[in-house]
């Protein structure tokens, strides 16, 4: 007896590949595991307004760069302006330019963002040690004392920043802090105090995302470097850490908006929260990075819908294998029920069952006449095929006349399969009587119904089309079942007389 090891290794490989591709698709490519999954997205409009001064204008707006959000779609609306999106190490900027604008100018930048769930900002490279600021004479002593106190009471960049943040925002501030705040904003002070000890820190401009807000402004936070990550501080109110739904818009320490050739420039934001299907999002993300794409969605729509049907067949086949090998049901024509179930998907179950029964019953009646004609098998089958087509045409016309739109779907039945079913049933009727016909016909319809129920489930349709790895899983299952030498469920019933005490 030859070893089954290679077989099990093959099955194991199939299972691992299936699992890996499915995980990749679900986690890396963000294809949702369940159909109809919803996801929040934010739609942010930045509106740049300025007054042109009748000379060439150049407007440079920084664009959001935040690991917590992924940009799904972005576009800039700016009639008459040339647009250039620059991406350099200082971050991404949109640059609009126009030779001779006049009057009030409005430029729009719109972006749709998806939360990624990442809430830490890691530093891509070690930041440079900042220049130690020089304090004005009046502040020098106060600053030095504050720095010394905080430095001695802390152990790291992070705890130093925390200590400073606390000092600046104490309910009863020390005189030193009061003095320093006279001349500095809390942010400036915080930043300078940090830089004084060589702690890397910079100002970031962020947008608080709230649904249906208009004319929002960016707010400033301070990012402090500690241990490979940037930590967010808000010295205005002494808080630390990232508030929910905060979008970091500008992190390089540059200005958010630069306008040359204009005056009274300002940028304001309006925000809209949207609920969109996670599937659509995943598809758009895949479109954005088409290079890693390996997806049926790249096919033309017609082929896609074709594959949506074809990829259901493995499920139907799996159901049939299971029912035959594990349960022990008999069907007339091995995979005939799968094809019938495919037709049911088009017709819906009830219409399908009624339609199938009607066509087969009519076919059997006409076939019983044909059997008197003493025809050769091949021409009899051909005749039955033509008759089946005639029946289908007749039913479709009739149901159209009576306004039964369900009847029109009857055309989805595979006619050759129907003809063979009729032929087999007819022989069965002659040989074994009507009882066997109902038994086998009913059995086939039962299997077809089960296959239909499996194939029409939303999540199964979603999985077979979006997670191609699942087919390897089915293949592994079918192979495993092909090795099953145990009893079939119905055999447990059939062999009941043999289950007694051993003789």
């Amino acid at each position, binding site marked *: 007896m030859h070893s089954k090891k290679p077989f099990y290794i093959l099955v194991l490989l199939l299972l691992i590949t299936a699992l890996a591709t499915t995980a990749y698709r679900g986690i890396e490519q963000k294809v949702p595991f369940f159909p109809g999954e919803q996801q929040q997205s934010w739609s942010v409009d930045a509106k740049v307004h300025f007054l042109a001064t009748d000379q060439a204008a150049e407007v440079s707006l920084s664009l959001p760069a935040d690991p917590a959000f992924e940009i799904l779609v972005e576009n800039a609306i700016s009639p008459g302006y040339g647009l250039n999106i620059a991406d350099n190490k200082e971050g991404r900027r949109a640059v609009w330019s126009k030779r001779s604008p006049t009057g009030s100018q409005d430029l729009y930048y719109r972006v749709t963002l998806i939360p990624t769930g990442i809430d830490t900002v890691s530093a891509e490279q070690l930041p440079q040690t900042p220049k130690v600021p020089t304090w004005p004479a009046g502040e020098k002593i106060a600053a030095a004392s504050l720095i010394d106190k905080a430095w001695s009471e802390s152990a790291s960049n992070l705890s130093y920043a925390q200590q400073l943040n606390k000092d600046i925002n104490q309910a009863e501030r020390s005189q030193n802090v009061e003095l320093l705040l006279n001349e500095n904003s809390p942010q400036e002070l915080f930043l300078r105090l940090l830089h004084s000890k060589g702690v890397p820190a910079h100002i970031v401009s962020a947008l608080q995302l709230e649904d249906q807000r208009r004319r929002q402004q960016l707010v400033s936070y301070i990012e402090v470097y500690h241990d490979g990550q940037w930590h967010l501080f808000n010295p205005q109110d002494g808080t630390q850490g990232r508030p929910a739904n905060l979008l970091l818009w500008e992190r390089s320490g540059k200005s958010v908006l630069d306008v040359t050739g204009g005056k009274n420039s300002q940028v304001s934001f309006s925000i809209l929260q949207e609920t969109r299907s996670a599937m659509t999002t995943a598809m758009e993300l895949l479109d954005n990075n088409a290079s890693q794409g390996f997806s049926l969605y790249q096919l033309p729509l017609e082929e896609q819908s074709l594959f949506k049907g074809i990829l259901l067949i493995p499920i139907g086949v799996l159901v049939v294998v299971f029912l035959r090998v594990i349960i022990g049901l008999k069907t007339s024509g091995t995979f005939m029920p799968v094809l019938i179930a495919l037709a049911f998907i088009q017709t819906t179950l009830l219409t399908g069952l009624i339609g199938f029964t009607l066509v087969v019953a009519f076919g059997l009646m006409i076939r019983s006449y044909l059997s008197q004609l003493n025809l050769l098998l091949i021409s009899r089958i051909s005749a039955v095929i033509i008759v089946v087509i005639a029946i289908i045409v007749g039913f479709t016309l009739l149901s159209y006349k009576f306004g039964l739109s369900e009847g029109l779907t009857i055309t989805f039945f595979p006619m050759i399969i129907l003809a063979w079913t009729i032929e087999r049933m007819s022989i069965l009727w002659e040989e074994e009587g009507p009882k066997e016909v109902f038994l086998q016909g009913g059995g086939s319809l039962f299997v077809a119904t089960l296959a239909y129920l499996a194939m029409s489930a939303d999540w199964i349709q979603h999985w077979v089309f979006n997670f191609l790895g699942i087919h390897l899983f089915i293949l592994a299952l079918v192979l495993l079942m092909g090795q099953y030498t145990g009893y079939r469920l119905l*055999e447990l019933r059939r062999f009941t*007389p043999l289950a007694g005490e051993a003789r």
Partner: protein
Amino acid sequence: MLKFSRPAALRMNGVLGMNKRNIDYIGRYNPRKFYKHVDDKLITKQLALENDIAVPALIGVVREQHEINNIPAMVVDETGFVIKPAKGSGGKGILVITDIKDGRFYKPNGQEITADEMYRHTSNVLSGLFSLGGNPDVAIVEGLIQFDPVFDGYSYEGVPDIRLIVYKGFPVMGMLRLSTAASDGKANLHQGAVGVGLDIGTGKGLHAVQFDKPITLHPDTQKKLIDIQVPHWEFLLHTASRAYEISQMGYLGTDMVLDKLRGPLLLELNARPGLAIQIANGRGILPRLHQVDRLGHHTMTADERVTYAKTHFSG
């Protein structure tokens, strides 16, 4: 109403299931290239004749549609005949004519069948309607078996046949199949024929079953089934054992009938014998298959195998 037994109970009694039969016995011991020995009844017949095994008389073979009209001429001297597909499966497509009067044909139940109906049936056979895989086939016209009156009262309208499972040349289990009113004169268990398990040692009835359920009396004749003693038992075992050599199939079902004049005849061989024989015997077949396996490589002749089977698989 639905009663299921525990798999462990069946396993303990050595019951062979369909999946195990297909994978571990048919798949392993019946080589594909020898299937034609058993699937084509014409080849089986020729092999049997070459090896001096008696088979039902061959009246003729219909290979082409135009030869169908020759059938009445072929059977002109016969009292009855059988038309069957050479590659039929599950007893399908067998037409039995037990009486010919004035050029009219009658089935075992007395019903007349017109020549046209008979031609159509033969035409279906040729088209492959009854054959495995639907391939074109030939029709065999065989002489009617004059069945031995020894089974009178045990069978209703049909020919009782003796099924033996031959594993690697050892007859391991036997069963007598009796037709009933329910089976319409056919000897197929799934159609309602009665199966009577037979003692390999003696050919005596052990246990009887219809529709997979144990019975004691024949449903139509009310005769006690386990009183049956199959005659020519030794000869039947020998024939079955030799069928292994001519067919080269390790897991084989042999179907034989007893003819009043000619004695036991080999009707057909089956590469996929059913499992109901276990119910008819009231026991699983696996212990006997394992016992044969334990013999390992051996050089026993057919006679020695029969002797071995009779001593080990009796009772």
